[in-house]
């Protein structure tokens, strides 16, 4: 008998494809949450593999804070065209204009929390019964407790103390009308797994992930990209730095790291020796000890 074993990346891929297909089979109206970041690009790629040679049988949803890196939007539109899927853009700016949500005030204002309201309202409006997300359990301590199929009540809330047990590979997607599921097919991937896989499979990424020169602001140790969306505090100055991003989200709260890694291979070497988690640069996680858990309970990604 030959050597029938899959390496860790192929084993993770097989698991994720299985979960994505399960969503298409168990739900009537799923949607894939697409931010343009590496995890959602990976998700798009795995979904393509799951249904090949058919097209991905569900639309993508981008919750647009309006504070985007131009590179992300350009990349997003090209990828959508290549995959031939439908893209729905739900705009936080429009929600502010319509009075659905109010903009936070002050220098630390962020549209991060507003995304939750916009996401939940979009799920309700379009009757989505499952939202696929690129969340990983290694990202943050409350995410470590997340299921693959994560039930949300009619208010879109997560109840971490009362989750459904998830056994073997049997996923229970049963729910009442008005409730929905968040599904996390790449739960078991680590940041390094994602990077290794992206390189191994030669998957294109926005240039932001590689080292480049950019005007930045150093705020409380977090390096933020200087932009019109981010007013300077009194004594702050912008400076040109060579940076890359480990995660890509809202421009005003996604921090960069100083780096000379201008190829994906160099990025992997940096990550392998890195002593900080990728979310260290996320200003939104620094608000309190349990800020991710609190946001997730309300219905955040």
């Amino acid at each position: 008998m030959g050597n029938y074993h899959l390496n860790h990346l192929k084993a993770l891929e097989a698991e994720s494809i299985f979960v994505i297909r399960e969503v298409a089979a168990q739900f009537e109206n799923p949607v894939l949450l697409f931010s343009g970041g590496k995890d959602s690009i990976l998700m798009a790629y795995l979904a393509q593999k799951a249904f090949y040679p058919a097209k991905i049988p569900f639309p993508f949803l981008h919750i647009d804070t309006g504070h985007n890196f131009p590179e992300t939007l350009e990349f997003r539109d090209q990828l959508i065209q290549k995959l031939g899927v439908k893209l729905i853009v739900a705009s936080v700016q429009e929600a502010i204009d319509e009075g659905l949500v109010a903009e936070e005030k002050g220098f630390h204002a962020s549209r991060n929390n507003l995304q939750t309201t916009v996401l939940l309202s979009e799920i309700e409006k379009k009757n989505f019964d499952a939202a696929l997300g690129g969340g990983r359990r290694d990202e943050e301590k409350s995410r470590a407790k997340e299921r693959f199929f994560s039930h949300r009540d009619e208010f879109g809330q997560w109840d971490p103390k009362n989750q459904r047990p998830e056994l073997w590979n049997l996923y229970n997607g049963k729910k009442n009308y008005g409730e929905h599921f968040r599904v996390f097919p790449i739960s078991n991937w680590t940041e390094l797994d994602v990077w290794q896989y992206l390189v191994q499979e030669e998957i294109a990424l926005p240039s932001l992930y590689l080292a480049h020169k950019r005007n930045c602001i150093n705020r409380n140790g977090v390096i933020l990209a200087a932009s019109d969306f981010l007013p300077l505090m009194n004594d702050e100055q912008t400076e040109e730095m060579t940076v890359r991003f480990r995660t890509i989200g809202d421009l005003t709260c996604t921090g960069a790291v100083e780096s000379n890694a201008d190829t994906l291979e160099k990025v992997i070497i940096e990550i392998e020796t890195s002593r900080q988690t990728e979310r260290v640069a996320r200003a939104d996680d620094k608000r309190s000890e349990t800020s991710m858990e609190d946001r997730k309970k309300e219905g955040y990604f």
Partner: protein
Amino acid sequence: MKYTNGQKTAPIFKNKELLRFTTAGSVDDGKSTLIGRLLYDCKSIYEDQYEAIKKYSERKGEDHVNLALLTDGLRAEREQGITIDVAYRYFSTPHRKFIIADTPGHIQYTRNMVTGASTANVALILIDARKGIVEQTRRHAFIASLLQIPHLVICINKMDLVDYKKAVFESIRQEFSQFSAKLDVKDIHFIPISALHGDNVVDRSSKMPWYEGTTLLYYLENVHIGSDQNLIDCRFPVQYVIRPNTKKFHDYRGYAGRVAGGVFKKGDTVMALPSGFTTKIAKIDSFEGEIIEAFPPMSVTLLLEDEIDISRGDMIVRKNNSPEVRQDLEVMVCWLGKRPLQLSGKYTLRHTMQEARCIVKEIRYKLDINSLHRNLEDKTIKMNDIARVVLRTTKPLFYDIYRRNRTTGSLIFIDEASNETVGAGMII
């Protein structure tokens, strides 16, 4: 989707194997500390994580950095100092990537241990050297055997508090071996450790020269898991039918799914259940192109030579090796629901890609996990109880007994009113 900002230089990453293990122990056995130690010594803890728990420990006035905080992430867990839910942790060494399902030790959370155990290759059970084998230890060992985890490692922890004495280790080992002789466990290892000081976790202890075995990490890196999968009985539960309906793939009809057993090859004569029609595999397809052999746990798409009616829930098998096809099942069930199991009650079952309804015809006995005694009188099956039941399903299930195949032998019970997952079943 190629990236073009460089030459095609995709490196081949070292062929790492994926190993899933679960950890169990009773309260204060030092389980979270052990995991913290493995992560810390394998350099899987980042500076910002370490700084965060250091600050938290200092604020709480603790003497040393509490590594347990790495795994207790929820607000309620930190407040109460206990682990509530299964937490998944990751670390890797040059040879393997590890997924830890860290399960809480409280008696009321046995359902979490079953959850963590269901996908594990290895179970780590912690025993406090001062206390020896307690009720929880027996329960955990029994669940590991019930769930057919192939390898069991008994970590006798807090050896520092018994002066690293060989006699303590040996006496616990003997007592455990007597108990485990009654269980169905293939492979058991015993390791004396101190999670707090790191003895025999990653590095060999200099304090226990009498111990000639390996460290825990060495064991995890080297235990042979290649034969944990069933490569004999070909089982392919159809998950999803791929029909592109495009000009290029007009007649394409692919059966997507994950191999649950055996090795499938192009040209194999196969049979579809429940129809019983036989045909041959025309092609095993994937995004990368044709696949020569498909084996567990690969996700692939099968194309067949003849057009036969197959849909989700059906199973493709080898012609001369079929699974059981029955509506009457004997099942060991671990009850997970808040409401007790109802005799004559109706539940929805999920089994491979099938969904069926069932009625509980009979509760044969409740199992006392401590004595392994079969209780024929008290048949009230509450949360965390384990029982043998007889089910009648609305349609035939295609299954193997759980001992032979963990994928085709397992099922879950779903409460039809609440939609909750209320039971974990293993077919016998």
